[in-house]
């Protein structure tokens, strides 16, 4: 009885399909492992592994998915809010990630230094400045979209092309290496758990609490559904849209620092490259409408991990990385069409017919 209520709660919150998609993607590995004579669940095994420099840590493909999917998941939080409030996407997040990472590393290394083991400023200052840079970029996007009412895609196109270039300028056109253990922390391990997983969890928990405990979530959805009506009923629509872009920029900053910390360097040309597309896809895979309005944060997070699960699965299957995008596209087409309205309506009708 209780099981059924969980099931119905899941399906009513629209989480069912994203979860099924994620499970289906991972199930491919069971089939592959059986076919190649391995332990059928070897993909899902989590063991403890003794590392060279971090002691005993959690080890396994599932951990890889959670770890490598962190940046996309963090971006997906902000993207969900932006999509909901403004019915548009922030396509600058990948470039902003790169800019924040470059700014952080430039401060930590000192301007013009391309490789260092010592920090020029305290770690906290570098990291906070990086995140602050994300907030500034978000505020810039927010101003264009909320105040000047420019189409979100056009408004964020500016930083999409400019942010990465500014990052390169800050880094003197070089990859800045900050080979320092304290900076590496954000991309390595806290105890046995990869730090990016913990950072993502903290971001998700804080955001969920804020959206649940305050009326912000409801305000954002109501602005997204009808901006004018919300304003007439007393909501400051401009302020709320502006706020979602600032939050989105902040999360881009956090994701950028996690990414830079993994490689203890600011590779301006490559950090966050094409990641804005993953973030948008995550929102869509999570069953959210890109037309704004109602949103489902948990769905977007699951969507982000689904994308990483596809990548990790293709690695595990040994699919050549040059052909991987084709398989990725096929899987995405399947997931998106399962979740499309006509298919949903058809399934509902079939169920209704069966019931009769």
């Amino acid at each position, binding site marked *: 009885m209780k099981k059924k209520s969980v099931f119905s709660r899941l399906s009513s919150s629209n989480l069912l399909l994203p979860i099924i998609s994620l499970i289906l993607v991972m199930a491919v590995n069971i089939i592959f492992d059986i076919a190649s004579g391995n332990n059928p669940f070897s993909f899902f095994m989590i063991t403890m*592994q003794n590392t*060279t420099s971090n002691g005993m*840590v959690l*080890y396994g493909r599932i951990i890889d998915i959670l770890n490598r999917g962190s940046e996309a998941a963090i971006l997906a939080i902000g993207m969900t809010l932006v999509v909901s409030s403004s019915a548009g996407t922030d396509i600058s997040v990948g470039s902003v990630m790169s800019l924040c990472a470059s700014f952080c590393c430039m401060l930590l290394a000192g301007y013009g230094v391309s490789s260092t083991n010592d920090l020029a400023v305290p770690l906290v200052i570098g990291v906070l400045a990086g995140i602050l840079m994300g907030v500034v970029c978000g505020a810039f996007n927010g101003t264009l979209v909320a105040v000047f009412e420019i189409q979100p895609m056009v408004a964020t196109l500016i930083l999409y092309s400019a942010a990465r270039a500014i990052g390169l300028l800050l880094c003197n056109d070089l990859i800045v290496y900050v080979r320092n253990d304290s900076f590496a922390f954000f991309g390595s391990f806290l105890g046995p758990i990869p730090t990016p997983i913990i950072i993502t969890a903290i971001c998700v928990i804080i955001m969920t609490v804020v959206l649940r405990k305050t009326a912000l979530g409801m305000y954002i959805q109501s602005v997204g559904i009808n901006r004018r009506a919300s304003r007439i009923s007393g909501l400051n629509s401009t302020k709320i849209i502006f706020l979602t872009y600032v939050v989105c920029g902040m999360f881009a900053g956090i994701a950028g620092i996690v990414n830079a910390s*993994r490689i203890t360097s600011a*590779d301006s040309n490559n950090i966050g490259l094409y990641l804005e597309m993953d973030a948008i896809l995550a929102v869509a895979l999570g069953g959210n409408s890109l037309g704004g309005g109602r949103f489902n944060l948990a769905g977007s997070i699951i969507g982000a991990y689904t994308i990483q699960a596809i990548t990790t699965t293709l690695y595990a299957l040994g699919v050549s990385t040059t052909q991987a995008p084709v398989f990725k596209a096929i899987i995405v087409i399947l997931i998106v069409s399962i979740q499309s309205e006509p298919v949903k309506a058809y399934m509902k009708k079939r169920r209704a017919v069966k019931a009769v």
Partner: protein
Amino acid sequence: MKMKLVAGLTIAMTAGLFVGAMTASADDLVSIGFAQVGHESDWRTASTKSCQDVFSEENGYNLSFVDCDNDEAAQKEAVRSFIEQEVDYIIIDPIIATGWDTVLTECEDAGIPVIVIDRTIDDSDKYVSWVGSNFKTEGLAAGEWLKAYAEAKGIDEINALVISGSTGSSAQIGRSEGFQEIADREGWTILDEQTGDFTEAGGQEVMESYAKSYEGKYNVVVCQNDNEAFGAMTAMDNAGVSYGPNGDVILISFDACTAGLKDVQAEKITADFECNPLAAPFVEEVIKQLQNGEEPEKEVFMVEHWYGLEDAAVPFEIDGEPQEVTVVTDEIIEAQY
């Protein structure tokens, strides 16, 4: 006040005379136009600096340098402006391999010899010489060295994992081809080859997956540039795999930039195969041949070095040519670009 004005004027006039003298003497200099790709990596910066150092005024050259910022149209414009300036020689590092015939014909009509460096031009042969790296030789060197090293160490089975560069780039194609050739000849197993896009993050992610898929089944990892090797090292650290001269896995890398050589010295990378960015001395050689009325070679391959520690300094041969591994020392790291 008046004194100041007079003094100022005098300085200005002297400066003017000086500039006049400079331009007069510029006529004796060999003028060169260099259309560089951009400034995307340490390697590229080293390449630019090499040209600026060699073609300096002290050496009797007048260099017009244009950084094309990876914009192919801007690069062709730069070459046309060199023709208008009537420079003596034009150096191009072509951003893309095609669409050059018209511009090179214009150079030919103007009687200006063109020297191509680093990347290649596929649809025209109206240049006197191409100076660059032989990526296939780099791959062959890695393969032949591995054979010699394995023999010296008494390793009789090679199971290699390759983390390749950006698919389709000339460096990736050449290095893969060269290494594969030796692997086929020696009957080695290449377990897998995935691209890490020449980035540290790419190397890390690919190696992280390799470590799980091929746990305990590999003893060689080949990274097609140093950045990928840095990433692979982190991933192997996290998987508890030991690598380098004293480890279980032989780690081979390409490029041999300063940071890469430091890791060779730190006993992390077993051997590093150079991709020489310092083309200018070889270009100068070609220009001297042209000035003496000699015909330079159509393809000039740069001298490249292979690096390791004493332990890895085993002699080997490429097509019968004896090769030597340079032992990395502080001086060598200091001198590297």
